Structure formats: structure tokens, C-alpha cells
């Protein structure tokens, strides 16, 4: 189980990276604090740590590894039911998806793709189709930077495109609202974006977030269709695979090294981090001997 303090830290990391700046007033931070029964001391500790290591957002050249570790921790916390509020889970899942999507355009040359779980590699391939990818990225950027424009730009076509999706979203939002105890409406994208006013323009219960719609569009059905299309083109697949393998072996090890550095950056390693690394070694087929060599090198470097 991930320590609650580390879950909070991880949420803050990816929320800040999404926003592109440290903003301790993001609503999602408060929501996670409440969910995990953490006070301002824990928040301050996490904030201090992030400020110390984040730099200008480069994390000493380890940004991707830091984000990957943060995502893994959050996913583990959700799997372990440490976070139970559906609205927060919804927000976190979308925050994770958006963060991962942002990394995807460079995936072919970016070995960090190897750190994604196997299950998540399916959507990866689907995103190689031009139109969907462009639409999705555009919407994310718009929401982050200027929500009101995003809603104007994207709202109409989406409503025309698929009414069933809209109605499903409306229901899920109402369900979430019922579960909220106080009168503060927790909107996942408000939480992520940190801008309270922009989403409130979306008129109460009829609120429908374009990002939510776009993400719902990349849904099981679509993935299946595109996976079949990819699978049917055997020659293309055969051509790509060896290149990917050849290019990725040393890069995977390098990325694993970065992950190891990141995990031990606070000088203390805990069971969830050890479990995470063990899982990654298995997923990436990295031997224990290689791991031990990397540990030695890391310790020598830190001397």
C-alpha cells in the first residue's frame, strides 16, 4: 500500500506538471487531502519536496520518470481503494490519461513508453491515427489554458456527434453530485485546471466537459476496431517490431535507471517503491543482475 503522504505528493506532481507550474491552491489537492485525511503539514512537506527537486519543471532531467512514478503510485492507491470518492477517482483517471496522452506523440522515440503498463499500450497504438490524436490534444490544451474558449470551440460539434455520450456523462455527473456532502461541486476538470470560474460557466447540471467527451470517445469499441485494423496489416507490423526492439533495449535500461534514481531521490526507499521497481523489472524483462549493477552505479555516482 502506498503511504497516503506519497499519494498526495504524486497527485501534486502530476497536477503541477499538467498546469505547468506549482499551484498549491488546486482544488484537487484539497480533495485528496480530505480523502486521505491529510493535513496541511503533509501538504507542506510534499510541496517543499517538489519545490526542491522540480526546478523549472525539468526535475533535473528526470521529468518523465518522476511523472511515471507518480502515476504508478496513484494507480496503486486507487487499486487498493485508498481513494474511494468517485469524483476524485474520475478526476485522477482523466488527469493520468491526459498526462500519458501528452507523452504519446514522442513515444516512438521515447523509451518511457516502456514504463506504461501493458494494458495501456493498446490505446497507445490507437492514438497513431491522426484525427483522433489531434482532436484530443487540442482539447486538453484548450481546457488547460482557456476553458471558456475550449467550450465554445468544441462544444457544438460534440453535441451533434453523439447524444448518447452526452446523456451518459450527464448521469454520471449527477451521481457524483449526490455523493458530495457539502455544497461545493467537485468538477474533475476544475480540480485539474485549478480555475474555479471557468468551468462554472457551464451551467449546472447540464454541464458537459468536452475533454470528458473526447476521452470517452476513445472507448473500447473504437480501440477494438483499430486494433483489428493494425493487426490485419501484418507486413507493417513485422517491419516495425525489430526496429522498436533494437532501439529500445538500452533506452529501457536507461529509463529504468532514471526510475531508480527518482525512487531513491529522497534517500529512502519504501515497500511500494520496491514493489514498483520489481514490477517494472518483470514487465521490462530487466534481470536482477542488471538492476544490481544500476544500483551500484547510482551509488557510485551519488558519492
Amino acid at each position, binding site marked *: 500500500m502506498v503511504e497516503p503522504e506519497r499519494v498526495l505528493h504524486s497527485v501534486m506532481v502530476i497536477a503541477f506538471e499538467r498546469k505547468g507550474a506549482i499551484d498549491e491552491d488546486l482544488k484537487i489537492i484539497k480533495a485528496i487531502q480530505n480523502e486521505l485525511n491529510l493535513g496541511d503539514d503533509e501538504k507542506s512537506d510534499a510541496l517543499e519536496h517538489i519545490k526542491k527537486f522540480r526546478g523549472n519543471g525539468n526535475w533535473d532531467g528526470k521529468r518523465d520518470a518522476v511523472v511515471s512514478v507518480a502515476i504508478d503510485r496513484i494507480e496503486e492507491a486507487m487499486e487498493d481503494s485508498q481513494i474511494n470518492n468517485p469524483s476524485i477517482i474520475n478526476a485522477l483517471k482523466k488527469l493520468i490519461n491526459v498526462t500519458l496522452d501528452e507523452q504519446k506523440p514522442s513515444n516512438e522515440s521515447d523509451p518511457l513508453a516502456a514504463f506504461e503498463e501493458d494494458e495501456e499500450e493498446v490505446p497507445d497504438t490507437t492514438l497513431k491515427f491522426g484525427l483522433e490524436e489531434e482532436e484530443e490534444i487540442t482539447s486538453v490544451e484548450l481546457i488547460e489554458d482557456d476553458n471558456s474558449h475550449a467550450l465554445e470551440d468544441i462544444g457544438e460539434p460534440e453535441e451533434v456527434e453523439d447524444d448518447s455520450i452526452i446523456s451518459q456523462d450527464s448521469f454520471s455527473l449527477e451521481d457524483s453530485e449526490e455523493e458530495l456532502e457539502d455544497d461545493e461541486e467537485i468538477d474533475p476538470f476544475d480540480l485539474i485546471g485549478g480555475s474555479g470560474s471557468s468551468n462554472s460557466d457551464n451551467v449546472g447540471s447540464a454541464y458537459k466537459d468536452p475533454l470528458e467527451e473526447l476521452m470517452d470517445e476513445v472507448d473500447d469499441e473504437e480501440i477494438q476496431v483499430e486494433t483489428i485494423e493494425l493487426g490485419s496489416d501484418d507486413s507493417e507490423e513485422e517491419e516495425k517490431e525489430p526496429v522498436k526492439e533494437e532501439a529500445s533495449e538500452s533506452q529501457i535500461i536507461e529509463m529504468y535507471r532514471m526510475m531508480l534514481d527518482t525512487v*531513491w531521490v529522497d*534517500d*529512502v*526507499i*519504501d*515497500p511500494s517503491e*520496491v*514493489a514498483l*521497481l*520489481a514490477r517494472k523489472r518483470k514487465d521490462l524483462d530487466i534481470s*536482477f543482475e542488471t*538492476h*544490481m549493477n544500476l*544500483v551500484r552505479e547510482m*551509488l557510485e555516482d*551519488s558519492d
Partner: protein
Amino acid sequence: MKTIFWTALEIAWSDGSMSKKGALIVEKLHDAMGLDISLREELENRFAKEILEERTERGEGTGDAELESWANTIIENLNSNDLKNQIISLSNEAVINGLSKEKWLIGMNFTKEFNQSNTFAEGVWMENNTEKEFEEYLPILKPLVDELISN
């Protein structure tokens, strides 16, 4: 932290001299530990420099009696079927307590003397687990327990 072989040297030289009997016990312990010869050389050189060089008193090597009793316990522990599992259990516990780089190195160096550093590493990195729980650790591991868990 004092390692096993370092402790053996300290006991053997406790009155400023080492008896022939003491030297034989050290050799016996060396064999039981499977201590790497270059590592032993390094330890003895450091011991001579840090401990013996400054010492002026000279005894009759009376440390051999204590050394014999202590070494017998250590050799018994080295042959114990529980040793590996205890090291794994200890390393798991150390991670739960929060294992720093410094403590990782201490654990590795300590267990390396008796060829169990890989067991320690496998326990830390979850390559090997034990179902067994131990209420008490073997005396050979006591210094490491104190360093990794008790502190």
C-alpha cells in the same frame, strides 16, 4: 557499524595482543564465513591502521577465550537453516522502516563478509520472499538488526 570479522579481530586483540589460539580461531571463522581473501586483507589493513597502530598496551592474548565462545556461536549461525530466511525477513523489515542508501550499503557490506549479500539484496528488492516470521534474529545478525531496524 562493526562487521562480523571486524568484531572477531577486536575480540582477538582485546588486550593488545593476539594469542596463537586466537589466530587459529580467526582462521576457523574465516573459513566458515567463506570470507573473500582480498576483502579480508582490506579489513585487516584497516584494523591495523585504525586500532592497532595507536595501541600501546600489550597483553597475552587473553581475548581468545571470549573469541572462542563468540566464534562458535557465529559458526553455528552460519550453518543455520534459518540464516537465509532471517536475512530476507530482516531486509524486508528494513524496507518497511525506510531504507536509506547508507543503510543499504551497511547491509550489503555486513552480509558480504559471509557471502549473503545477494540474499540481502534479493530481500530488499523483493526478488525473494519468506513466509517465515521470526521473533528473534540470530546473534550473527544482531548488529545489523540494531542498525536497520532498532534505530
